[in-house]
């Protein structure tokens, strides 16, 4: 048995033992606040058992292992429905970026440790109402204020901001230069005076994203994590991590096996639906698509393990997986016919077709819309020309709103 398989077995055994206390069943019917508390305890348990920060340096409380161990653990963990998603973004993007770019190292170390143990949560303050897919068009501004800065403006689509202790933020520090060049990257205390968080209710009924308002929020210059005017590059790093983290060939919807089971259990014209060519076609096509993505992801990990840089095809996962998950979920509803009306807004989109369907559009937009991903592939990978952008090179404060 390879080291990795040994590791997988060890992880699986531990996760198995945690399932009764923190798993799917234990969470049934919990209010979100209680679920979050359970999540914090689970995160602490991971930390104590040596499964937190698996591929992070040991000096920051990590395990100093490789990306492969991390991925292996995640795959096993996914099976039990633990309340770990509250920390997904926090530990996925902002905290690693803090580790990399934070100036006050003692402060950084303290934050990272508390985040790893589930005591503190970080959010990522990028998108704005006017922005859409145009990140560099953001309007929230930071003006010099004594030795520090004063932030005014509004962010939106900030996941878990209502539970966050800190956040990383990109703001405009110079409106007189072209839009990409006037941005700076900071961290902020979400509990500071002038910070207001307002949850946004989404189509599916839940509210894990927020609007965040900044009114004269004062921060000292040691909050700065990029050169003044050099914030866009750091933000892009974060987004790249984000795109890479997002590799679930089920598009964050149900596993295809659940559709196969549904098709076997459903009678269509008196015969099991699994015998109907239309259903078979969709199963076959979705399987082929997903197995391709899985193979791409496995290859990417092997390359990283071998010290190589994976190809751009990693960016395909979210684009093709979420898009097809949306249509497959619609078909699953058709397949249930009048039984398909039934709806539980708290059902998991990884296990329930109606929940998967209603939340799919969010998946096609968050973290890079389909169109943005296609443009990225066309321009960055294939070298096709950029779209016409009338605002290119124009000082930000001269672009018509």
């Amino acid at each position: 048995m390879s080291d990795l398989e040994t590791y997988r077995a060890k992880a699986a055994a531990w996760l198995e033992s945690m399932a009764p206390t923190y798993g799917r069943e234990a969470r049934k019917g919990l209010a979100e606040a209680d679920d979050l508390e359970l999540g914090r305890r689970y995160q602490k348990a991971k930390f104590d058992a040596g499964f937190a920060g698996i591929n992070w340096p040991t000096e920051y409380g990590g395990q100093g292992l490789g990306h492969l161990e991390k991925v292996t653990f995640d795959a096993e963990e996914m099976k039990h429905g633990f309340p770990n998603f509250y920390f997904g973004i926090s530990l996925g993007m902002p905290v690693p970026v803090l580790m990399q770019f934070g100036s006050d190292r003692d402060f950084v170390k303290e934050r990272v440790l508390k985040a790893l143990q589930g005591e503190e949560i970080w959010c990522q303050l990028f998108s704005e109402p006017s922005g859409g897919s145009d990140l560099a068009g953001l309007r929230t501004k930071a003006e010099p204020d004594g030795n520090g800065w004063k932030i005014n403006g509004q962010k939106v689509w900030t996941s878990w901001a209502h539970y966050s202790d800190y956040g990383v933020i990109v703001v405009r520090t110079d409106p007189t230069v072209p839009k990409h060049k006037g941005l700076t990257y900071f961290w902020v205390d979400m509990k500071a005076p002038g910070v207001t968080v307002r949850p946004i209710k989404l189509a599916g009924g839940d509210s894990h994203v927020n609007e965040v308002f900044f009114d004269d929020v004062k921060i000292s210059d040691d909050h700065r994590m990029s050169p003044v005017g050099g914030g866009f590059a750091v933000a892009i790093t974060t987004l790249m991590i984000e795109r890479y983290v997002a590799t679930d060939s089920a598009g964050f919807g149900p596993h295809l096996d659940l559709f196969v089971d549904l098709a076997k259990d459903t009678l269509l014209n008196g015969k099991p639906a699994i015998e109907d060519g239309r259903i078979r076609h969709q199963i076959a096509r979705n399987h082929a698509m997903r197995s391709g993505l899985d193979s791409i992801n496995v290859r990417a990990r092997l390359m990283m393990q071998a010290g190589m840089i994976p190809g751009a095809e990693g960016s395909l996962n979210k684009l093709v997986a979420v898009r097809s998950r949306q249509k497959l979920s619609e078909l699953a509803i058709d397949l249930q016919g009048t039984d398909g009306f039934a709806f539980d807004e708290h059902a998991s989109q990884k296990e329930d077709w109606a929940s998967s369907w209603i939340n799919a559009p969010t998946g096609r937009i968050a973290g890079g819309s389909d169109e943005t991903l296609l443009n990225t592939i066309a321009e960055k990978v294939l070298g096709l020309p950029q779209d016409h952008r009338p605002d290119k090179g124009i000082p930000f404060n001269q672009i018509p709103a």
Partner: protein
Amino acid sequence: MTILYDEGQQAIATESRRVLEARTSTDALLPLLESVGDYHRPFWDTAKEQGWTALALPEAHGGLGLGLIELGLIAHQAGRSLSGAPFLTSGFGAAKAIELYGSDAQKARWLPALASGDSIGAIAFAAGPDALPAQPDVTFTDDRLSGTARGVSGGLAGDVAIVLANGPGMPVLALVDLNDVERTPVPSFDNSRCVANLSFVGAPAETLAVGTAARDAALHILALQAVVTAHEQTGGAEVLMEIARDYALTRRAFGQPIGAFQSVKHRIAELYGLVELARANCIHAASREGAADFITAAAAARLSATEAYDTAARDCVQIHGGIGVTWDLGLHLHMRRARSLAIEQGSSLFWEDVLVDRLAGEAA
């Protein structure tokens, strides 16, 4: 029958649109999603007051003696403004079943009440994905119904239902008074559809048709409803296309309206195509009521309208980006309605089979 609307028909369209736009709003519809069993009463009051409930029923029984074309025009507008209840279609189906297959007594008892909208009708044919099951879950013996009809739209508020039941060795199309029947509400993603499971425990029922005649009758009723629903779906798809276009004209990114990007403008142009094909099939189907090819025409209308509404819901939300998935903007009301209309009166899977059986000469 011609497929050009005459002046009277155009007036129906204009007037119903004016009334509905004045009396419906996203704010009124959103809360309905979060309570089970409520529907938008102003919509239903309007339908009664405007005589839409009576539109396609015979004058002899309190109806206005108009047909599918006129009712389709109303349904199209109802689809545009997200009708607040399913009763217009379910009641029409029930009334047509009674008009076409009922006794004079049954007509006298139910048609006037259905025409005035004082009574609400429901249709209970389906068993899950089977819109016309060979073996319905409900059985009919000695003029009584037993068993449960699942997921009946409007069932929660219905006064009378037409049920496809399993009779002695043959299917039976039965009429049942719902007042003493137990209904269990089904929490759904589109709660104003008033979906319920109807549990019959020896409920007294009357026969409308038996054997093959019962199945043929049920399919005919389903087809009539499908044409009405297809108009409603087309209306929904049409308004989503307009919303997408208006947003693409005003929303700017990278210094220009997003409608200037071909990925957006071509997608909206494709929606235009889907809407026009659905509209054309709807007009054609409505004009074929009573003709030999009516079922085929109804199936074509149903298939293209379902595709148009589902696609428009997907694309309109996508074009809006983040704001498109917020609760308050309410585009998800259309997403949800697109899906509930897609499974009422039989899914696309069902209508594809109905259509191909006929094209291949395997049926009627």
